[in-house]
């Protein structure tokens, strides 16, 4: 059984009422007040051997920062967070804590785990208002490092390498840093001024950000390899399409495009902003991950009646439970065990033909393999269709580095230290793993940065 986040006992976050939030892009979750944060922190058992840290990909000293909240020293709590994580306001919001730190918390079997994510967010939000804490920086090493891509992996690698004393140039192809934090995750889950503030903090460590630079084009791979070390954090930006008949009809979007138009380009505010988007009156979203939930909830806020179609069962949805619950609250219709087979229409789309799926034997992911039930086709009328079925590693730059060993799905192959097959070149985040989470990308980037530091100092 899934338990929606707002129904948990004790001090939980405060979601804005549905009838209010579906009309705007302001944050859904209101966050803790200082009193609530201190009350929640007081529940922490301060374990001698804290298992929660084991669940944190960036090794935050969780009991220590919670102890400071309980004591009312929020600045000290922020300092402890920043030692390990330069993007705490972001992570507090978008990490899947339920399967990480909170999933390890021993209180989960007694009452409920400490709301570590909410506490991290509280501290980071407090810090942003009261003055950002900057971590220590080592003396300059004189080494020049290039970081490619200013998403979660690139920002983390850049921050870590700058702290370790290296001169970092951070290349970003878009007009704003942040990667998926800016173009992918909607503002109602992650307000953009929060992303910008944490990026500013990273840049204030002395990182030289070059926007509008597509590496492989605006600088050549040869110029890139002239740096003393290179980190590739180019992400999984290549949208997969389903290969359906009618998929190129106007009204059909990849989730990447739909979300980019709204989140990065502010198409929700067209014509004040110049970028338009089709605000469908009836929208079908295909997929079951966090990106699918985001696309569905954005389409809902643009005024559409939204149906989410997923080929497996509800319990197989890969999206976070809390986001599924919120999507349902917001009136998204969930059609499970169904898969689109065709986009209907001539000149413009008019609907999506789907087929029912039968759950068969378990596949390699341990979930039942869905198979179409012949003759079960049905049509959902729609004027917008969004394919949110995943993204692959952005092939552009890694395609220009033929010596770089790559896996079957185009991902860059790395060892535990995030070293690639190319000397001096490291990679981390979605470009190495395929589409995963913000925090896993950040964890990899930290490992890479420390390995790069060792290499740069040994040379």
């Amino acid at each position, binding site marked *: 059984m899934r338990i929606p986040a707002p129904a948990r006992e004790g001090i939980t976050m405060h979601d804005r009422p549905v009838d209010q939030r579906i009309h705007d892009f302001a944050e859904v979750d209101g966050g803790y007040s200082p009193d609530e944060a201190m009350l929640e922190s007081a529940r922490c058992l301060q374990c001698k051997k804290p298992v929660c840290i084991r669940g944190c990909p960036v090794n935050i000293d969780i009991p220590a920062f919670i102890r400071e909240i309980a004591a009312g020293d929020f600045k000290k709590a922020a300092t402890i967070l920043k030692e390990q994580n330069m993007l705490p306001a972001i992570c507090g919001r978008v990490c899947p804590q339920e399967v990480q730190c909170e999933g390890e918390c021993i209180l989960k079997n007694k009452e409920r785990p400490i709301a570590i994510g909410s506490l991290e967010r509280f501290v980071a939000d407090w810090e942003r208002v009261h003055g950002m804490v900057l971590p220590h920086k080592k003396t300059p090493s004189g080494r020049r490092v290039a970081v490619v891509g200013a998403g979660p992996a690139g920002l983390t690698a850049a921050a870590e390498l700058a702290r370790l004393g290296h001169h970092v140039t951070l290349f970003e192809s878009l007009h704003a840093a942040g990667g998926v934090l800016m173009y992918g995750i909607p503002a109602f889950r992650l307000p953009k001024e929060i992303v910008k503030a944490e990026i500013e903090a990273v840049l204030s460590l002395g990182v030289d950000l070059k926007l509008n630079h597509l590496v492989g084009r605006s600088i050549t791979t040869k110029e890139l390899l002239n740096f003393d070390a290179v980190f590739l954090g180019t992400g999984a930006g290549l949208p997969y399409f389903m290969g359906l008949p009618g998929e190129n009809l106007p009204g059909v979007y990849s989730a990447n495009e739909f979300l980019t138009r709204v989140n990065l380009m502010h198409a929700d505010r*067209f014509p004040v902003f110049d970028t338009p988007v089709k605000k469908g009156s009836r929208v079908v979203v295909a997929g079951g991950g966090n990106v699918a939930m985001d696309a569905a909830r954005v389409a809902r806020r643009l005024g559409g009646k939204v149906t989410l179609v997923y080929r497996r069962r509800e319990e197989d949805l890969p999206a976070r439970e809390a986001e599924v619950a919120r999507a349902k609250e917001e009136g998204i219709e969930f059609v499970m065990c169904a898969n689109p087979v065709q986009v209907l229409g001539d000149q413009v789309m008019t609907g999506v033909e789907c087929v029912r799926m039968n759950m068969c034997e378990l596949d390699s992911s341990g979930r039942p393999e869905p198979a179409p039930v012949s003759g079960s086709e049905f049509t959902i009328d729609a004027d917008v269709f969004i394919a949110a079925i995943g993204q692959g590693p952005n092939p552009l730059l890694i395609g220009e580095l033929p010596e770089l060993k790559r896996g079957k799905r185009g991902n860059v192959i790395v060892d535990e230290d995030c070293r690639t097959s190319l000397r001096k070149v490291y990679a981390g985040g979605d470009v190495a793993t395929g589409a995963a989470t913000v925090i896993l990308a950040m964890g990899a980037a930290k490992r890479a940065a420390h390995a790069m530091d060792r290499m740069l100092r040994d040379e």
Partner: protein
Amino acid sequence: MTRLFRIEKAEQLADKVYQMWVKAPHVAHHAAAGQFVIFRIDEKGERIPLTISAVDGDSIRVIFMAVGKTTTHLAALSAGDSIRDIAGPLGKQSDIKKYGTCVVLGGGVGTASLPIIARAARAAGNRVIGIVGARNASLLILEDEMKAACDELLISTDDGSKGFHGFAADVLKQVMARETVDCVWIIGPAMMMKVTSEVTRAAGIRTYVSLNPVMVDGTGMCGSCRVTVGGETKFACVDGPEFDAHKVDFAGLMQRLRMYQPEEKDSLERYHAHTCACKGGDHHA
């Protein structure tokens, strides 16, 4: 952190057609024939692709027709003004090799893309024939530059006011009747590229067109610019913008180009209403 790109020269070339030189070293130092840039004029702007028409030192030239809100706004800017963001160079370079005799053919503002290709093709040892078509003589652009870039320049106008009276496609047929043509570039509006590239299909002449679909990021991340080429979905921004003309699904391209027509119309009307109110009404006369 914010760096603006300064406009060094801006002028009108023909009715609604403008050229602009902008200082953008990161683009200029790496640009090659066939590539494009993405412009975003200001914080509220959309990202639009423009072909790199020429490069000089730290600067690039773009040539565009003021048809929508963004291009109309761009046309209103002058030397000394700035563009908020320029990303590039983007897309693949033209496939320049020694073919023998090449024809570069442009229709309307598409002619802007030709000189840089003509020069590169000529430098690779090709004989280059330029064909430039326009509705009438006053709409012809870059005539002198094309004359210098090509071994031979032929002109056509729909109304016969200059050069051959008829379409550029007819001139291409004449050239093909007269001599062997090994490779052709055709650049212009989608319908013109569709029709003109039929001229070379039967003869099996290698023919490239440069596609101009709607783009957002221009780096392969959104799929807005997808187009069917030889039965496969391609992204014009990273797989193109130049493709084998005889394999392009032009009907699909044109259908997607029309996707935002109502929004484009609204946006332009709103812009005109705004500029007229602000600037006394004669700003875009």
